[in-house]
């Protein structure tokens, strides 16, 4: 008796479990497009979608917002588990990695067939970060680069009417504006952010990796020059050796004149407007990066819209990419987030044109360079900064640091090298 009722209960449990599983893992509603966003963009895009859904009545978009800190892990886990969304926002340094994993759908034929996404209208280097092995895998959504925020009043007091045009002028300004005995410094360069050194390195003619991107090229004369400039800024006490965790409130310190320059990104335009009192709003401006000899290159950052290869809604996903790529929509997106549009024609909006702080960004975006398109790049950049921080702390000389970077880069790239050799 006990046995029989036990088996009945067992069967019932099995059927309930199976039913629950089917309910949970069953196919989603036919025309729902799942869109992953990372960071604050998710909220903004949600308010752009009603217009899209009105013009595309058959498509329902489900935006899933994920925190940026979990993004990378979440994407790789989804790929490993075969649970990728239909489309996503993707930082352009992660693109080579996802291409290597065969996770992304090629987009060339869509671009060829449309009037909306016009390649030459995009900033050239930004568009190039989406190309891997000759194929196009993403459409730039917004762009990001690092440049100088500076205190125009402090520069004027020190006798400089304009921001620096080249490194030697920049060095003179930093020297004039630094008073380490009063804890006042020329510039803030957080020692755990790699973007600043990377921007200086991209201004050099030598590539960062060599031999088909399979070895580090940090001992090149160009990189050592950039590293020396970076390290000297700390050795001359023109920047404090602090990480961004310790800085706490850089906006307030910038406002109080602790730093005359702040090497940072476009989101800080809105932050400074929000955080500095009205009386100080006239005292800061932005400037494109000075190079070794004249205007310098910057980092081609930003995020693209990608469609996943496994998606069953390729056409619908592309329709949303097209919609979000329209200059009008990009302008609204800029208004909502402060994320800069990747198309030149989107910059024709009065909002961007009448904003003096954005002019330097517009200028810099014509002079940005992409980082090497290898899956290991981000790891190499983090390593580069860790070694550079040791040079800043005085543990290594510039030449030793460059050699150490090459040594570690070669270890990181070992697998890539062996795969390249096997393919030949």
């Amino acid at each position, binding site marked *: 008796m006990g046995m029989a009722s036990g088996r009945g209960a067992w069967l019932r449990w099995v059927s309930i479990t199976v039913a629950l599983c089917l309910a949970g893992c069953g196919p989603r509603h036919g025309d729902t497009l799942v869109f992953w966003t990372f960071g604050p963009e998710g909220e903004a895009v949600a308010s752009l979608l009603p217009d899209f859904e009105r013009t595309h009545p058959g498509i329902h978009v489900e935006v899933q917002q994920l925190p940026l800190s979990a993004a990378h892990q979440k994407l790789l886990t989804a790929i490993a588990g075969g649970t990728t969304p239909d489309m996503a926002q993707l930082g352009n340094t992660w693109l080579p990695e996802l291409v290597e*994993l*065969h996770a992304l759908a090629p987009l060339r034929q869509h671009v060829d067939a449309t009037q909306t996404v016009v390649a030459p209208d995009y900033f050239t280097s930004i568009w190039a970060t989406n190309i891997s092995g000759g194929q196009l895998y993403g459409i730039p959504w917004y762009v990001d680069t690092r440049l100088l925020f500076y205190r125009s009043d402090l520069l004027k007091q020190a006798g400089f009417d304009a921001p620096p045009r080249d490194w030697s002028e920049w060095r003179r300004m930093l020297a004039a504006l630094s008073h380490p005995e009063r804890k006042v410094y020329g510039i803030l360069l957080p020692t755990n952010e790699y973007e600043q050194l990377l921007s200086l390195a991209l201004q050099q003619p030598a590539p960062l990796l060599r031999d088909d991107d399979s070895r580090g090229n940090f001992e090149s004369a160009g990189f050592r020059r950039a590293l020396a400039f970076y390290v000297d800024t700390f050795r001359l006490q023109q920047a404090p050796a*602090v*990480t961004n965790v*310790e800085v706490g409130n850089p906006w307030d310190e910038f406002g109080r004149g602790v730093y005359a320059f702040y090497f940072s990104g476009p989101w800080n335009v809105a932050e400074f407007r929000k955080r500095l009192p009205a009386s100080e709003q006239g005292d800061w401006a932005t400037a494109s990066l000075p190079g070794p000899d004249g205007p310098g290159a910057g980092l081609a950052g930003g995020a693209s819209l990608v469609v996943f290869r496994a998606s069953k809604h390729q056409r619908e996903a592309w329709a949303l990419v097209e919609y979000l790529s329209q200059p009008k929509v990009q302008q609204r997106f800029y208004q909502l987030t402060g994320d800069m549009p990747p198309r030149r024609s989107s910059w024709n909006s009065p909002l961007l044109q009448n904003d003096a702080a954005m002019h330097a960004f517009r200028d810099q975006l014509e002079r940005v360079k992409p980082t090497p398109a290898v899956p290991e790049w981000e*790891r190499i950049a983090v390593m580069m900064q860790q070694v550079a*921080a040791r040079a800043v702390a005085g*543990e290594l000389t510039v030449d030793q640091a460059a050699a150490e970077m090459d040594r570690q880069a070669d270890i990181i790239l070992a*697998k890539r090298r062996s*795969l390249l050799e096997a393919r030949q």
Partner: protein
Amino acid sequence: MKASRVAWLFLAPALLVLAVFFLLPVLVALALSFTDYDLYALADLHNLRFVALGNYWVLLHRPQFWAALGHTFYFVGMGVPLSLAASLGAALLLHSPLARCKAFFRTALFAPVVTTAVATAVVWRYLFNTKYGWANHLLGMFGIHPVDWLGDPHWAMPTIILFAVWKNFGYNMIILLAGLQAVPAELYEAACIDGASAWRQFRHITLPMLGPTLLMVAILTVSGYFQLFAEPYVMTEGGPLESTTSVLYLMYEDGFQWWNLGVATAEAFVLFLVMFAVTAAMLRLSRKAVA
């Protein structure tokens, strides 16, 4: 015979769960640690290579790993005694017949354990800020120069240790308090009649009676502190100059940030062996001390 089979049947569900959710993953991880599983292998399994003990060999030649192991030992070596002393001290104070508002203090001292590390880390980062933090403000009142708590590679780990001790001592305190309450009052009464001082009572009654509890608490704390991760993750991100990177932090970076699961699992097994050796040594030493 029959009875033993029934016993196995009763054990079967638990064993099955253990096998599927513990033993199997551990075995797979062990197998993984003999391969170079990485992004390329995730893309195409043909890129997966068997490297035998290669990951372990590379690990033993990697300065970052030894540095991380050193930081972990530093944390355990300093943090565990401090943590136990703080727990025991707090437990003794709470147990004292002179203590008032016991329930309030017990809750207050236990509160850090149940507060999320992220929230407390934000507060601690402000407290230990070089320019604006109260810690330096307090030192300044005694004329001591400000300390770069989280930015100086020599000070970051002590700050992390302080944070971890503060965060965790309440848990052991509760266990030790229960241990103290189990010590028969007659022993103290007899000691009083014999004229033993408070220190001698502590040394010859409290400590021996708490012995087994202390040993268990010490072993749990050691194995917990070896798995240092959350504190540096939320306070310093492993910096400055990687001075707060623990073995587990390195493993997290290698495994989940860079997806080098082969290397990361090898690190996990090395950490397991180290923890196993240390706790086994502790057990043996305590047995010797008893005998």
